[in-house]
């Protein structure tokens, strides 16, 4: 009998942790990671470092290339999954290659969500989801200080804002519903949180007070590259406009699998989807919470790493439930600044 083939889609914290766990538990089985990225696993939480001059991606790598050889983990980069056929347990990549699997772990995470009303301006905005995007933003900012307009502003965006301000850039936040995503801030507490942002040096424009974004336009000659126009007619100039409206699970390729989906892949506490051979972990899945009686997302690197480990354990015969060990807590410290364990990557 040939060895079992575990296939992991996604090479973030979750996918890597899962691969390592799988190898530890099953020294013989085949392990393949399929990722859209061109790079090996790097630390997404370190990406703000590009604004501190860290431009060589090799410094971001968590493991050296040899690690994957040594652990016999096949990494297929630049590979997009087109379809999964759960009946025959075959995954098809976009370049028309079939990869049979015995167990499949979906750990594709999420990508930045852009509200539909802003979708047409996507080409004029810059994301922050990958090393390539981070470098592109860094290159677009003038040396010695540029201006970034952040729309929405979630905790990933706020983390970046801290670094940008630290490195001499000006950050204007158009605050709305998603500003503290995924942290839930009550209406009463919100003004205090906004004030904390201002203490940290972020200029805050409340979306409601300007009527929301009407248009994002190319800047005129000699001016910064972008112009944000609000419904009330007011404008903001920026070198870079970045949307931060939380993240949306990347599950397009799971469309024909019949696996249950709401916004993310629905999994039980053991992280198994409704298909016995398919698991999901990380930002891509909604986990059934017995306490809350609903499916919910868990964010933060500790959580998604733990999910990778739990899923891998269960893919290899274990039966452990995922237990959240970090909250996307956001607090105001003694100096009136926002702090969160979400931002402390170890």
């Amino acid at each position: 009998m040939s060895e079992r083939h575990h296939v992991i889609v996604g090479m973030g914290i979750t996918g890597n942790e899962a691969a390592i766990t799988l190898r530890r538990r099953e020294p013989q089985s085949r392990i393949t990671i399929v990722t859209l990225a061109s790079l090996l696993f790097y630390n997404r939480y370190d990406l703000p470092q590009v604004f501190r001059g860290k431009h060589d991606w090799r410094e971001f790598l968590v493991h050296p290339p040899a690690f994957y050889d040594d652990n016999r983990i096949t990494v297929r980069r630049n590979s997009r999954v087109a379809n999964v056929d759960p009946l025959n347990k075959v995954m098809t990549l976009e370049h028309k290659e079939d990869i049979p699997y015995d167990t499949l772990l979906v750990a594709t995470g999420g990508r930045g969500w852009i509200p539909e009303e802003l979708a047409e301006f996507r080409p004029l905005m810059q994301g922050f989801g990958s090393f390539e995007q981070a470098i592109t933003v860094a290159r677009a900012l003038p040396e010695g200080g540029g201006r970034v307009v952040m729309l929405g502003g979630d905790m990933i965006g706020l983390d970046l804002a801290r670094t940008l301000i630290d490195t001499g850039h000006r950050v204007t936040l158009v605050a709305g519903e998603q500003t503290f995503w995924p942290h839930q801030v009550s209406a009463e507490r919100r003004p205090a949180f906004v004030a904390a942002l201002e203490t940290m040096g972020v200029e805050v424009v409340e979306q409601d007070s300007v009527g929301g974004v009407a248009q994002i336009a190319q800047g005129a000659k000699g001016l910064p590259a972008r112009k944000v126009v609000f419904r009330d007619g007011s404008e903001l100039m920026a070198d870079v406009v970045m949307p931060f409206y939380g993240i949306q699970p990347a599950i397009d390729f799971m469309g024909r699998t019949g696996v249950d989906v709401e916004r993310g892949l629905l999994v039980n506490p053991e992280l198994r989807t409704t298909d016995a051979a398919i698991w999901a972990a990380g930002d891509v899945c909604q986990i059934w919470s017995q306490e809350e009686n609903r499916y919910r997302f868990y964010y933060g690197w500790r959580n998604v790493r733990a999910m990778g480990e739990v899923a891998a354990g269960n893919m290899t015969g274990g039966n452990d439930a995922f237990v959240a060990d970090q909250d996307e807590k956001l607090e105001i410290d003694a100096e009136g600044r926002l702090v969160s364990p979400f931002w402390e990557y170890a």
Partner: protein
Amino acid sequence: MPDEEVRHSSDPRDIGWVRQNVPCQTACPAGTNVPAYIRLILEGRYGASYETNREANVLPGVLGRICSRPCEAACRHGWPGNGEPVAICHLKRAASDLKHAGHRITEQLFAPTGKRVAIVGAGPAGVAAAHDLSLLGHDVTLFEREERPGGMLAYGIPEFRLPRDVLAVELHNALRLGVQMRTGEAIGNGKGETRVSSLLKDFDAVLLTTGCMAAMPLPMRGDQGSLHRDVEYGLDFLVEYHRGERKRVGRRVAVVGAGFTALDCARVARRLGAEEVTIHIRTTEEYIPVTAEEMFEAKREGIRLKGLRTPAALVTDESGRMTGVEFVQNRLGGWRAGGRRQAIPIDGSEFVEPCDTLIIAIGQKTVNDFIDVKVEVGRDGNVLVSEDGMCSAAGLFAAGDFVRGPTMVVDAVGEGRRVSQCIDTWLMGKRRRTQAVRIEPVAGPQRERSFDFITRTHMPTLTLSDRIRDAKGEVELGLDEATAKEEAKRCYLCFLRYTIDVDRCIYCRACIEVAPRNCIKMINGVEIKPDGTYGSLAETKDWSKVAAIWIDNNECIRCGNCYRACPVKCISISRCELVDVEA
């Protein structure tokens, strides 16, 4: 050479080839010859394109706007690796929009038969049937309860999706061949109403196409049997709105339901001034039967969608005003018939969403208590019809949503067309029309490979602010001529059949080298099925075992590369399309 002539074939293999290879036409409930009308658009013959549409569907301008587009889901261009489906629906509208202002429609009329048919309900099914039956020479009388014909088209679908002038023109064209239109005339048992039994006496055949016009109630805790004043049924809401009644909604509107009606209600509510409109669905966005484009437009208008929840009760304040809806959290269950998902409520997971108006649009059902003759009824309350569309009462036919439950407009049009054939056969005692495959040799590929790289055009739309300003302004603005032609180029013209003449092939592989996909294969055998059709191909990579080079029509995207590359011109192309012929 006999190859050069047009011929008609009723060989089941040829009919089967078209069914298998022209997926859009097969998917279309009305059987529209999609490649043919798209090709005509590229040739700039918009009127002819409109007529090609009209052969199958008498309301092209209407369906070109509001069709649920099963064809696009089937389109080969949307198959894995091929990109996005052709904008078949938008092109249908383009043919209608771009045809000459003085365009003359063409009809093929049969001699009068002297037979009389009554049709009850001037919705899409009734109108389609009335049109086809009148073409076939019968005298048709169409009864409609409302003031205007059109049924759901006139009263259910908002004007910002379907302008009424477009509807009026097409209905008029459909009915002007002598159909007697009697609006404001209800059929039923009530006072002053005409009974079905008397219709059966006065007419040679009676067709019921009254659709599904009764709202499906939503059971909630503490239900008093009557609706709370802040709660409305979606279809009633729309019908009243389109009758011209003044409708009001609160600041926060919750819509419950997952179909086009729910979406329409939400978008109307937004136009009536609601600031927060949320559609609550039992399952998830994955499993709801609306087009992604429609969903996107709704979201652009600020409408949010929340899944996995079922309304359980209304929350009211001391004054009795509704302040919110209590929902229960669901999880996904098994599959229901018709490919829908089941939602299973979770005990103890109740939560409240604040809202001022609740619109319930979870579905509609038929009403059949107006029929005074005895007919068999199925478990779901719909009348039962046999294969030939007839109910258990002789001469009484039924079709459309009235039989099938709520479906899409194009289904109704297809049903109307089909049942008119049945009625005609019954009335005349024989089948007068039948299907055949028209096969015409074609001189060249008619396409260029570069066409395959054109990306799907996006429908230009009214700006968001204009949508609120003019609640009736059509959101989709239509394609201009250049865009329509560009989009038309994308169609693979699947009705073109490419064949390699094995006797002339010199096995040079030039076609394989230029093939855009794995569409030309080296094979060492073909399965021949018992009925003589070709089955699966036995492929080989071993050059020494190749028996033939074969075009896999299923993979073929009709780019013409192989035809152009072949040094010995052994590849032939023929155009194969389903046509109606005299039996």
